[in-house]
């Protein structure tokens, strides 16, 4: 029994850390603009497929492929902000960004099918396929890399937001747009930065998981949705909550897979409904105080 739980924990952490990484992207744009990119999953997919092009087709080193994907996705993030966000956020209460980001995600997916085809592509792990043992549990080196890479990146982003000047400016915009503008911060640029950062995280997620999931045009939808669920569970405005939420979703799925494999897929969303009913701001979200 212990081995089973230990294996589920190890496997769950590697899946969950990717959810956490994508969800961090939702967080960054949500706090700055109140909007988020519902195409995060598709952006992740582009990261993975572009990684294939760099790493396999062009034969570049894995590190270069990672950087190239992150750069490409950063550019796509800036583009997304320009065409799908800036135009729709002009009106204060507008929800059009939901539709426009979904539209972009569909376009991106279809474009990917045109460019890379609908087939799964093998992305050999640069760390090899030899199973490592942590106690009794087995894990692929790539999965270990995913766990450390994702959690490390999430912490790095937090460090950037709290310590770096640019990050502080972004955080200031998140707290109070008008005050930040008065202080001489270029709000528009910070919004672009938020989307660049968010998309870059998705791109990184893509190159990280491709060796485990294969790379293909339809790979992003499910992780995108589950990461969103993780963000809701953890609390969209709490980065640490999101990290824990992501890991929790990954581990929960594996645990319920042990109890009954029929529960594995549905359990996350059941959990979301439960959280929304009991704590609408998420497990670790701040309670909103309404003044009457």
């Amino acid at each position, binding site marked *: 029994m212990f081995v089973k739980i230990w*294996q*589920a924990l190890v496997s769950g952490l590697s899946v969950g850390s990717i959810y956490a990484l994508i969800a961090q992207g939702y967080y960054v744009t949500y706090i700055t603009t109140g909007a988020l990119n519902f195409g995060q999953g598709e952006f992740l997919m582009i990261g993975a497929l572009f990684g294939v092009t760099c790493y396999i087709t062009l034969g570049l080193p894995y590190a270069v492929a990672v950087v190239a994907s992150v750069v490409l996705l950063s550019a796509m993030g800036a583009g997304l902000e320009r065409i799908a966000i800036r135009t729709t956020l002009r009106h204060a209460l507008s929800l059009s960004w939901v539709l426009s980001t979904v539209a972009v995600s569909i376009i991106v997916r279809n474009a990917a099918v045109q460019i890379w085809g609908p*087939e*799964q592509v093998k992305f050999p792990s640069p760390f090899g396929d030899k199973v490592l043992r942590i106690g009794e549990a087995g894990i*692929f080196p790539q999965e270990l890399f995913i766990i450390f890479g994702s959690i490390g990146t999430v912490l790095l982003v937090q460090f950037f937001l709290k310590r770096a000047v640019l990050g502080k400016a972004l955080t200031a915009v998140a707290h109070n747009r008008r005050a930040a503008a008065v202080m001489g911060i270029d709000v528009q640029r910070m919004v672009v930065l938020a989307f660049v950062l968010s998309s870059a995280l998705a791109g990184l997620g893509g190159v990280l998981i491709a060796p485990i999931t294969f790379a293909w045009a339809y790979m992003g939808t499910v992780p995108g949705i589950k990461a969103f669920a993780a963000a809701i569970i953890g609390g969209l405005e709490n980065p640490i909550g999101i990290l824990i939420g992501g890991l929790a979703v990954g581990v929960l799925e594996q645990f319920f*897979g042990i109890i009954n*494999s029929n529960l594995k*897929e549905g359990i996350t969303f059941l959990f979301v409904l439960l959280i929304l009913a009991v704590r609408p701001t998420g497990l670790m979200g701040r309670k909103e105080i309404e003044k009457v």
Partner: protein
Amino acid sequence: MRARGWLQTAAVGAFAWFALAAAGEVLAAEPVKIGFSVSLTGGTDDYGKAAMMGFKLALKEYNAKGGYKGQPVEAVIYDDETKPAKGVENVTRLITRDNVVAIVGPVNSGVALAIIDIAQKQQITLMDTIATAEDIIKRYSKEPKNYIFRVSLNDGIQTSFMIDYIQKKGLKKIGLMHDSTGWGQSGRDTALRLMKEANIPVSAGPEVFDQNDTDMTPQLTKMKEANVDFIIAYSLAPAGVQIAKSMQKIGIAVPWTGTWGLLAPNFLRLGGKDLTNGVMAVTSYTVDHSENAKKFHAWVDKEYAADGGDFWPVATAQTYDGTRLVLRALDKVAPDPARLDDRAYMKEVRQKMRDAVESIDDFTTAVTKMKPRPFAPDNHESLGRDSGFLAIWRDGKVVRAQ
């Protein structure tokens, strides 16, 4: 004035165009059309693409010999995107708008189970050359006239080869797993039924997994705890690779098998030689099992050299034979091409096509292992217990399992 002159010219032109078009229709009889609806995109697109090669070659060969009454038979090809709803749309369109005499397809069992109702109701022959769910043929087998035919080993027959193997090797503890698609669930039911009949208990499972799952350790851990010595998995190739990987992860190294989906080319492409080594699957066809098969394999390789040659031989060969059976039936029915627009006449032609397919008894040129009389009123499965065997992956090649 000028505007009016222009209008007049346009009116005369339009009239002339309509008149010509109408005349053209009277002069040239409408070509006979055969429908083809398979997955060219989506989960089972490899099968669809390979099937299309077989379909096109059969038509090409037929038309090269003069076609039907001197006119080439036309193909109407649609992609069902591996979606049942799209498959229903395609078949409805083929029947009502494109006016085809028979339909070849689909490749996905989930899609097939959704469209056989229309084919049966509209009384049009549906030649399934890939999809394996038992119910595709069974559902209407008690009707006076079943319009569905198959050139593929159904899941029951495939599973029976696995059970033969289990009994021959004296394996005692069997694990069962399946994907959550319609096909996976029907496979599970088939396996449970046949294992019960053979008195083999299921020691672990049935465990379900999503076809896009990347980690099957929870399901496989249960197999490991139950100490299974053999696993049957209804899985397509991509999930099959994940099963093999997860088995490595938790350190369970028992032989396991699936249906012919695990012989698909992407199993080797995604899994590589080491991972696929020792994985078993049922098949009905190898490229060198007969002279006909050898010749056909060389022909496909040559015709489709640019598209990777005969990349999925089973799918291509079965569809080639299935399409040729439909064309042979067309020759037997010999409808009048000029009257195909007449709905009542077309209905009659389609009914006769079905009867003709059922009664073909001189099909000696098959590339698959089917008899000269592939079908009978009480049997719409052309491939049976004598046409298949359990194969195993060895160093990237498929060989017969001993």
